[in-house]
């Protein structure tokens, strides 16, 4: 059975790109445009990987996803992607603590693949 990844981004093109790469890595990608929908999906389904952007419209922030995941018996590995941080910025440091991997947009697809394999223990 294919592993399932939940991908959260408000940019439709970005969702398509991430989905295409995840499929080559053997994942079925479920895409949602904001944190609120992400939490709603996670309430009913189990995911093997979470990939999320940071700054998205909507009343519910990405931090809420991480708060929600604390209530899960087993939280999936999580990768956070953003264009708005620098390597030493406060925001990046925060997510480096919360997530299993961070990536800055734009990124090389190969770096994304490597990170997915690493956080999923496939590397």
């Amino acid at each position, binding site marked *: 059975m294919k592993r399932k990844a939940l991908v959260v981004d408000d*940019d439709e*093109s*970005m969702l398509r*790109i991430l989905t*295409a*790469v995840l499929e*080559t890595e053997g994942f079925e990608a479920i895409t949602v445009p904001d944190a609120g929908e992400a939490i709603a999906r996670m309430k009913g389904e189990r995911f093997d990987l979470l990939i999320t952007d940071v700054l998205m419209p909507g009343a519910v922030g990405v931090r809420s996803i991480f708060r929600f995941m604390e209530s899960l018996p087993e939280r999936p590995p999580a990768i956070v992607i953003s*264009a*708005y941080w*620098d390597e*030493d910025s406060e925001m990046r440091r925060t997510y480096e603590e919360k997530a299993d991997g961070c990536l*800055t*947009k*734009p*990124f*090389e*697809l190969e770096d994304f693949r490597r990170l997915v394999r690493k956080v999923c223990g496939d590397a």
Partner: protein
Amino acid sequence: MPEGSVRAGSKAARDAARMRRRVRELESRLKTLEQEKDAFVSIVSHELRTPLAVIKGYLDLASEGILGEIPPRLTEPILKSKESADRLHRLIENLLEVSRLEDGRLPLKWKSVSVHSLLSGAVSDMESQLKRKKLRLKLAIEDGLPLILADEEKMRRVLDQLLANAVTHSPAGEEVVVESGAWKGAGENAARAPSRVFIGVANRGEEIPPGMREKIFERFRQVEPPLTRRKGGSGLGLYYCKNIVELHGGRIWVESGRRGTVRFVFTLALDPLAGRGEKS
């Protein structure tokens, strides 16, 4: 003292005080403008990253064949678009890093680094560009070079920049030479173990006029004026290289002769933190 002289003296003192106030006001205004400019550069650069991520992502998917087979007539346009997107990416990152560098927000992550693996990695990433321009590459690294203490990622960006320059300015079919060894030049005691290494990147190309050899390391400076230049570039790459090399206790310069060889050389201290008490 005659009354007239006293009056003239106190007027001169008042004028001088007024001038000093004005200079302070202008300095403060200039500082504010600099901060506003840095904030603007940062906002614009970060905003540009998002659409560029989509452009680069789709181009990468296309060139990897994930979007389906590419008709042969589209191979070249996709490749060229990918190269341009990568250049734009480098420009944005350079703008951001230079702006952080200038206001002291670019911390270095020191670790022991092998010059050999640093150079091999940089050269291997440049392979496809070298191939496309039919350039030969000669990598000459002295045996037994000690490890250096450096920020590997930033040093890689310096090498990427110098290699990209060499590829851009080299005529097709020529040779690019990357070399490294113990620095035996100025400041080294020949009887002692070296405290510096040097790295050189050389290519055939147009001579850099003597008057420009220092200026090209200044911000936004290029050999050719912006409106007439034939090759791309922002004029930030070498400025970035100079700053990073100097933060590593080194020096960078260019050697250029009439016979058409351009060689960028930089030195690096084996331990740039020695005596600074910053060792991590």
